[in-house]
Structures are given as C-alpha cells and as structure tokens.
C-alpha cells in the first residue's frame, strides 16, 4: 500500500513541474504586453519602461523563469501587475468563495443526480429512462450563462417581494460586511505571518465564519446568495453523476453475484439496495471527488454571470489584462489542487477497491 501511495506521489511531481513551466511560457505567448493592457490608452514608453523594471519584466526570459520557480518554492507567488498586491493575498480572498460555490454545487448535484441515476437504471430502456436522462442532460446542454440569466430573472424579478425571492448576484448584500472570526473573538492576529494568513484564509469562508461566530444574519445572507449560482453550476456535475450512477448500477446489476441473489429468491428491492448499490457507488464517489477539482477552476462563466469574485473570474480577468503574476500564481494553485485531489482520490480508491492495490 505504501509503495502504491509513494509511486502516485512521485508520479505527480513531474506533472506539477511541467504545469509550472508550461504556464510560464503560455502566458508570455499571449500577444500584447502587460503594460499596454494595464495602463491602457495612456501607456507611454517611459511609463512602460518603469513598469517593466518594477516587475522584472525586462529581465531575459530564462532569468524570469528561474526567479519564478525560486519564488514559488519560497511560497511567494509574486505581486499582481494590476493592483500591486501579493498574489497570495488575492488568492486568500478569492479561493474560499470558489470552494464554497463548488461545494454547494456538488451537494445539489449529488442530491438530485444520484436518485435520477438510480431511477433510470431501475427503469432501464423505458420511457422513464429517457425522460430522466433527458432531464439530467438538459442542464448540461444549456449554456450556463443562459440558465443563469433565466434564474436571475425568475427569482429576483418575477418572484420579487415574495418568500421565494433570492438575490440575483454578489456574495453578500450591500452594506453587510463580514468580520473574521478572530476579530470577533478578540484575537490579535498578524495576517502577514504564515499562521495569520492561514487564519485569514479560513475567515474568508463566509458561511463557515458566520456559523462559528453565530452570526445568523450574515449566514443567511451568504447562503441565499449562493443558491442560484449553486443551481446553475450544479447542472454540469449533475448530468455526469446521474450518468455514472446509472451505468455503474446497470453494470453491477448485470453481474453474476446479483444473478445469484436473485436466483436465491431475494426480493428485488433488497437485492438492489444491499448489493448493487454499495458497489455501484464506488465510481460515483470517485467522480464527486474529481468534480471538486474540476469545478474549482472551471466556474468562470457562473462566476461572471453571478458576479462572484472567485478564482475563475479573477483568472479570466487576469488573462485579459495580461497580469502574468496572477495567471501564473492562480494556475499553479488550481492545477496543484487538482493534482492533489486526484492523488487523494486515487489513494482512497486504493482503500476502497482492494484489487487496485496490487497492481
């Protein structure tokens, strides 16, 4: 088992390094330079000279690469070219929101997707099967911004002033300012240290933060703002989860030991529930874990439509503004996260499915 884990970890390292290098070059291939993109219509040669010097953009490329890699190992992701703030700081502010959104979306997707998949599998090749799979696939077949706009229109305008009204965009209502839990509890925290930065990161999880400080008004505000984007984003994993549940269950149902149980006269429902279900869930659990990694970086459209300043939207804006530091930093973190999540899923799969361990 240990060798299995070690092997996976070792294999992940070159991938991560590859990611760093590819990002570095890819970003510099984009036409247009940061100075013109950021200073805009009024970028003069003199202004650009000082800009480039300040951000080390006038060093030769290999030097930049070395500095970049060195800084990453020191935990320094550089400063944003647009706002001069440390990329790590921006990440601390943006990542929690994306995680909250992703978790909400996955929760909804699992809640709806698994029952749909079960239903479809039980009624295999019937009209109900078609209807269920159509429903599951409708969400993923719609452009997410279309769905988002429709949801906004429905819940913010048509249902305005009713019980079902929901805020159309933003993370919190205007004027509602979150206070990190360590401030509420009177801790003296220096956010520039590693530990302080970590606490700040935790404090940025608005829902969790509100929960542990007992601020129910803030908690409710944060939750209601995540419902619509959560629904919109959930449509993507929902289809996949429904599909995988269905095929996984079908496959298991066709297996020999199920036939044996049926032959022994066990009730159909018990057969399904006891044997088939548990085994069919393995791949589903894996998929849920993988989707977590995928959604973290892929929620660009949802975040744009619902005006949530998360990782995806910031990354897209950084690409537009040629903010090299933010692009590199964010991609490194997202991709590393994805690789790590994959690793954890692989390892957990090893625990769950003994056959795998002995490869």
């Amino acid at each position: 088992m240990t060798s299995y884990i070690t092997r996976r970890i070792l294999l992940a390292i070159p991938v991560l390094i590859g990611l760093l290098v590819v990002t570095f070059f890819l970003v510099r291939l984009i036409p247009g330079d940061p100075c013109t993109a950021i200073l805009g219509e009024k970028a003069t040669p003199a202004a650009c000279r000082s800009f480039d010097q300040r951000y080390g953009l006038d060093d030769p490329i290999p030097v930049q690469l070395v500095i970049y890699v060195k800084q990453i190992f020191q935990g320094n992701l550089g400063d944003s070219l647009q706002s001069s703030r440390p990329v790590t700081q921006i990440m601390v502010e943006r990542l929690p929101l994306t995680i909250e959104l992703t978790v909400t979306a996955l929760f909804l997707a699992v809640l709806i997707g698994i029952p749909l998949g079960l239903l479809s599998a039980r009624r295999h090749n019937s009209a109900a099967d078609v209807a269920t799979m159509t429903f599951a696939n409708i969400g993923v077949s719609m452009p997410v911004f279309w769905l988002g706009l429709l949801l906004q229109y429905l819940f913010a305008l048509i249902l305005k002033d009713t019980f079902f009204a929901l805020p159309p965009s933003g993370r919190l209502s205007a004027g509602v300012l979150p206070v990190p839990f360590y401030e509420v509890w009177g801790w003296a925290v220096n956010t520039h240290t590693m530990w302080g930065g970590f606490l700040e990161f935790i404090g940025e999880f608005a829902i969790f933060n509100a929960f542990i400080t007992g601020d129910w008004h803030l908690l409710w505000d944060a939750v209601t703002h995540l419902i619509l984007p959560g629904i919109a984003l959930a449509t993507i994993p929902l289809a996949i989860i429904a599909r995988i549940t269905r095929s996984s269950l079908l496959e298991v149902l066709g297996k020999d030991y199920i036939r044996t149980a049926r032959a022994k006269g066990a009730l159909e429902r018990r057969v399904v529930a006891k044997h088939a279900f548990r085994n069919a869930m393995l791949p589903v659990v894996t998929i849920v874990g993988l989707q977590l990694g995928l959604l973290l970086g892929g929620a660009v459209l949802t975040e744009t439509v619902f005006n949530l300043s998360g990782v995806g939207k910031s990354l897209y804006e950084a690409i537009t503004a040629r903010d090299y530091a933010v692009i590199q930093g964010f991609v490194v973190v997202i991709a590393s996260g994805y690789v790590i999540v994959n690793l954890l899923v692989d390892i957990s799969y090893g625990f769950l499915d003994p056959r795998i361990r002995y490869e």
Partner: protein
Amino acid sequence: MKTTRWVALLALFGLIVAACGSSTTDTTETTAATTTTVAPATTTTAPAEPSADFQGESLDAGSCDYGGKIESITALDEFTVEFDLCSSDPAFLQKAAFTPFGIQPEEHLQETGGAPLDNPIGTGPFMLEQWDRGNQIVFKANPDYYGQVPAFDTLVYRWATEGAQRLLELQSGNVDQITNPSPEDFQTIQDDPNLQFIPIANPNVFYMGFTNTFAPFDDVNVRQAIAKGIDRQRIVDNFYPDGSVVASHFTPCAIPNGCTGDDWYDFDPEAARQQLADAGFPDGFSTKIFYRDVFRTYLPDPGAVAVEIQTQLKDNLNIDAEVVVMESGDFIDQSTSGNLDGIHLLGWGADYPHITNFLDFHFNENQTQFGNNFPEIYDALKQGAKIGNPDDAVDVYTTANNAIKDLVPMIPIAHGAAASAALASVEGANYPPFGAPQFEFTNPGKDTFVYMQNNEPISLYCADETDGESLSPCQQVVEPLYTYAIDSGDVVPRLATSCDPNEDLTVWTCHLRTGVTFHDGSTFDANDVVASWSVGLDASNPLHVGNTGGFDYFAYLWDGLMNAEG
C-alpha cells in the same frame, strides 16, 4: 453515505467551535476593519489668518527645459498656492478639477510610502470605511463636511460587468442607482414608473480612423470619397440610443468652438463612387476594419457597427472590408501608433471641458495615430492653445475645423448619448457631464445608498489611476482645488475659493479654503496641496510610488513629469 457523514462531522465541529467562541456581534454596526483608522473628525477653529511660523514648501523644476507645462508649485503662505506655468494654459482650471489631482494630507502620503491604495484620506463628503475586495466598498458620510453634508449615513459601491445585470439589480430594488444601462434598455427604463432615467451630457465622439501612411488611404480623394459614401444618419438611427446625434464636426457642439466652420460632408453615394473611380478605384478595393469589443458611450455596440460599416462600404462603394476584432490593449497600442493597415473604429470621451482635449490630443504635430500630420491643422491648433477667451479664438478654430474636413484624417460619425438610471424614489439623483455622481446631493429616503458601476476599482489612490471605476469612488473622498459643476462643464471652487490667473495665463494664484479638516482630523493647508501635486508630478520624489507608478494623468495633462528618466 460518505458525503453526509462528512457534513455531519463538519457541522459538529462548527458547533463546538461556536460554543467556545465569544458572544455574537451585530454586524450592521461594523467596526472599521484592518484598512483605515478613521478617527472622528474634530472641529477645530482654524485661524482665518495664515500663521506666521508657517514653512511653505514648493516644487520647482528650475526651468522649463524638461518639456512639461508646470515650472513650479509654491506654497506662498498657509492658504495660498501659486502655480507657475511654462506656457499659457486657458484650460488650467478645467484640468486641475480632475480627480487625480485630489489633495491628501502630506503626513498620510508619507506614512503610506506614497501609496495609499486602499486607504485614501481626503476632505470630501464621504469617508472610506472598508473595501471588501471583490464585493463592495463601504463609505460613511462625513458629518463635518464644509459643503453639503449627505442626507444618508452609508454609501456602498458595487459593480457588475453586464448592463443587463445592473438593470436587474436596480429593478429588483437591491441597488439605488446604476451606470451605463444598455442602450436597448433606455426605453424600458423610461417606461417603468419605479425607475428614473438620467441622461448624461458627457461630450464624446465616435470616428472611423485612417492611417494615411498606408495605401490607398494616402490619397486624400479616397478618404473624401469614403466620407461621402457613409450614411452616418443610418448608423445613428439604428445603432445608437435616443439622444445620440450625427457628428457635424469632430468636437461636440457643447464644447466652445467645437462646431465652428463648415458641417461635415453629406451622404452622397453617387459623388462618392465617382470620386473613388477618379482616384483609380472604379471597382473598389480590399481593406480591413479593426475594432475592439469594448462598450463605450461613444460606441455602445462595436460588433454591430463594424458589420454595418462593412455592409455600407460594400453596398455604396464596392469596398470589401474584412472585420477584425482585436484585444483591447493591443488595439489601442497598434492604432495609436499608426500601425493598422486599414480603418480603425475608435472614439473619445472628454476628460475636461475644453476644445484642446479633443482637437489637440488627436491632431497635434507629434501624433502618430493617423499617419502623417497636416500643418494646416496643427498650426491653427497651436495658435488656439494660446488664446484664453474662447470668443477670441473662433477664427482660429474655424480654420482648424475646415482643414480637418478637407484633409479627412478620420470620419466623425456620432456623438453617443449616455445615461444612468436610478430608483424613482431617490431624490436628487444626478450624473454630471464631467466627473462622477455627486452623492451628497441625493436623498434615497433611507440610511444606505447603493451605487453600481461597471467594474471594481483598481485602487483608490487616483493620482495613479485612469479608469473611471477608480476615479468615481475616489471623488467621494478626495477633493481637488476645483471641481466640475453638477449640470454643466463649468468649474466651481472646491478646496480653493478662487484661482486667479495673470495676464497671459502663465501664473495661477490659488486661495485655499480655511477651516477645513481631513477625515483623520488633521488641518488642510497649502503644504498638503504642494505635497499631493509633487508626489505625482515629480518622478524623483521618493513618494512617487502609487500603484503602477505611471501617474498617467499627471504626465498627460501637464505634458510630462519632472525629472523623468529617459
């Protein structure tokens, strides 16, 4: 199931932590967080007479050799500042009223190392409370403001990139005023009894630019033919909101001397074809139309207009134009450097209300955007820049305008109508033609006023910013010597009670308002003015740091920074 077990554990953990935590706080009454220390402004009775032991500071370039407009800025006494210019400037006040030239306390600039990016301190009607990055900016009213104290407690800035989003938020009652609703929604807003439509009279122009170093645009006959072959009325009728007009000149008529001289060519397709044939292109030619897909009041729908112009060129003149969209920064770079072989679609929104901001910026002797320059135009402009009173400059600008028509460096198409929208319940909702809304004059009938603009500000230190989304919140907090009137292009006193020029407009003596305190309690005096200007204007100043260090409006409006390298 695995997921539910984790959720339960997490909830349990949360409950335990919450139980150990202290009591709840009422979040509507938030304390100023880690960003700004804002002490309540104390009312000190400042002496009306300047104190004798005041040490006035000054910024002096020594000479005008560095090429800029300002030679020195000197604090003559506690409440008087003198600006010495290298050449006469009829638009001095109009430029000085621009938000980047707002005044902050000298000590604060020193404390922040020249970069108060998220904690500006000013004298304005609002004080910054907290910038919740990514989400909102919260301001509190300044109860000790010397001017109109706001009628409400809390001002909140939010942002959304899409016009439809902003309108939705307004209609759902979550925000009180928005900027730039989509032109297609103008009618919807006007028809909705819960909303009010606020037209903005900001002068702007949209034009088709030629780079006359590339054939066939090097032939003035070709340019004139195209000018006659575009039905500009059709473009304005179909692609611009109500209130927009066809441009008779490059400069909108609201700017003095903008519309002197002959009106632009009429649409005459037969004459256009004839002229093009005479120039050697009876069957037209191939070219490209370059544009960027960015919303601006002068061009709200770039994609559609590009296609429309393509259609017209083909139908009227048999010119085959390929539509090419470019990335915004790249487009600006290439077009302003004169590198685009074809037609480029660009425009201009007024920075300050003076004809030099339109004509001089685009047609001066050194510009590169349109290719070769024409002395017929720039000589006239040079003369006009020396004349202070617009009435005395009519002839000069008539010459310039007529030369522009003859030489067709570009074709002006439209002056776009802009608008803002607000809830009908907001009294005094405004959007001045220059500058940001002046919220101290609005009354929403409740404690909090929420304003939604297009984007998040880049920073709140506007000496070093150029985007409107930063300038707007800055303006609520930090004030310049003068400011723009709420309903016209006139300038009105702000931190200066008057600025008197000498005979040839080269020396401006500004008398400052007395008894004003900054939001942190410190007193406003002439040294703060000198410091705020120096930090931006003098590249060798150790506090010349800012955000990107560009201080672009200082460089652009005052013809260059002092002690700049290279």
